[in-house]
């Protein structure tokens, strides 16, 4: 499974970012191979519609699940119909968040 986690900088070891659309970067982890890459969020500095653009970006990356602090309504409108699962967390390191997701310890964002 490919997971994206919002982080505060486009570099390894960056802290968890609690906003989705304007998160500076995402760590994309393939849980099968444990391969991970950090990618800058092209929408981080968007004038408007950052959530929409960030969501579209992650869909193109083939991500299946996203962990962030909060998802805006427009980001959800793009992510969910494409079958991505959204999870909310308050804090944690990337390793910790992946472990919690795999254990089923993270809150899935329910249907509105």
């Amino acid at each position: 499974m490919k997971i994206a986690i919002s982080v505060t900088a486009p570099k390894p070891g960056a802290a968890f970012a609690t906003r989705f659309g304007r998160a500076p970067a995402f760590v994309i982890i393939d849980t099968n191979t444990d391969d991970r890459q950090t990618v800058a969020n092209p929408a981080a500095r968007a004038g408007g519609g950052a959530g929409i653009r960030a969501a579209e970006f992650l869909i193109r990356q083939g991500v299946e699940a996203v962990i962030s602090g909060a998802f805006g309504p427009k980001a959800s409108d793009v992510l969910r119909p494409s079958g991505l699962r959204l999870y909310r967390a308050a804090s944690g390191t990337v390793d910790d968040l992946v472990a919690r997701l795999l254990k089923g310890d993270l809150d899935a964002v329910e249907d509105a």
Partner: protein
Amino acid sequence: MIIAVASGKGGTGKTTIATSLALTLASDRPVLFLDCDVEAPNAHLLLKSSFNQRKDATLLVPVIDESRCGQCGTCAEVCQYNALAVTEQRVLVFPEMCHGCGSCALNCAWGAIREVPRGLGILESGNTPAGIRVACGLLNIGEALAVPVIRQLKASTPARPGETTIIDAPPGTSCPVVEALRGADYVILVTEPTPFGLHDLKLAYELTRELGLPAGVIINRNGIGDQRVDDFCQHVGLPVLLHIPMDRAIAVGIAQGIPLTTLKPDYRPLFRQLLLTIAGVRP
């Protein structure tokens, strides 16, 4: 001649001044009054406007014909406002994000984008008992795009030859204000002698400089604060056109819908003088 009345801070008395100017001018020349404060237009309360024409202010937004769409993603790529998202299943449109530029439709190689009007608000026009031609824009509740409403208000009500235009601008210094001031010959900045008034006057003054528009200041509710607005104006060479003292009777009258120049006819010659000063207008 187009005179715009603006302010950084809200509630300083823009409409009080704009309506008084219009009424002063209207006694001997044709006046067009544009209420461009489309989020809260209220000049009609003072001018006693009667509107007899009404039309919609709209914006063209994309609609996707999914049977023609090639899912290429170009529309979302060219959209500067992130109003489109191309996902594997379909193209999602967020009409409230769209600024109506038309780039998506222009760049669609599949002919899959049709543009349809979306209502943003209404434009009304009419007259006042003093013979002022009036037009007013009203943005729909919850709508964010004031600029196209202001643009369409100005375009649909051009001044007739010989008419002096008074524009009542929205407060602040953002895009709707820029749109309201565009094309003006002179900007009157209304402020009050308080720290907020001064702070926002500085921003509004910077805006007029950026736009290359001559400006002057009216200090309203004078006496409630300090000298710093006067000092600032003197320091940057911004003319102070008029001081209006804090006067409870004015506040009470305005709240009852009575224009300043009706309430206090002594202000008429002051506004006449002010109009002469700013541009050689001879009311």
